[in-house]
């Protein structure tokens, strides 16, 4: 399990680059992970997604689906794909410090 320094902190990542310990997450860590995913700057739109995902995960214990992000989180699917191109659910989950999504939708 690789450990790396991110934003001045030693952080453990799994083989797919997701945080192992959710408490390692911070806004600074998110910013670094976003850059690795090709997102130069996290905008208000990105933060809305990230914050909903974290809150929903804390409540439900599962990474929300794209449908849930739309219906409950109020993030239109089109916008989600624009914010996190080429793999929105996975990228957003990684930046939000959550586990890799396990569902098929």
């Amino acid at each position: 399990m690789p450990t790396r320094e991110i934003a001045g902190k030693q952080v453990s990542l799994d083989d797919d680059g997701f945080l192992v310990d959710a408490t390692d997450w911070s806004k600074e860590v998110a910013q670094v992970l976003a850059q690795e995913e090709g997102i130069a700057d996290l905008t208000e739109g990105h933060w809305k997604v990230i914050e909903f995902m974290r809150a929903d995960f804390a409540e439900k214990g599962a990474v929300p689906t794209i449908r849930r992000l739309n219906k409950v989180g109020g993030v239109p699917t089109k916008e989600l794909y624009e914010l996190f191109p080429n793999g929105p659910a996975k990228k957003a989950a990684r930046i939000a410090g959550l586990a890799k999504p396990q569902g098929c939708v």
Partner: protein
Amino acid sequence: MADSSDKINKVSIVISRGSLDGVYPGLIMANGARMEGIEATLFFTFFGLDAIMKKRLKKLQVATVGNPAMHMPTLLGALPGMSAFATSMMKRQMEKLDIPPVDEFLEMIKDAGADLYACRATVEMFGLTKDDFVPQVDAIINVAEFYERSAGAQIIFT
């Protein structure tokens, strides 16, 4: 992790059946492709057109006859209400997994950036027009155009 040169970049999925269990696998695979950043094209042909017809897409049923995997004697499967029962069971299970109904799924897949096409030969055979289809359908195309638009794609027939 797979070598980046082995990565699938584009899929072209054909949906040829009109039962609920015939339609969903293709929809899930198309949506899943977009979720992975893979380009996706959906081509609806023969009874698969039911999945994009305004009048029919909400009435798709699970086939209980001629479907050995239902583990149900043919005569029992043919009883009135049996298909409706199996259909509502499956819909309930899918809702639990957050898999949307067909109309909402088509919107989601379109919003995810996939292209949806109807097969010209079938459209002509059934005497249909573009107005019979949901607005997410981009165009009615023939098989030659299907192959043109599938250039570089893995073609998946369902």
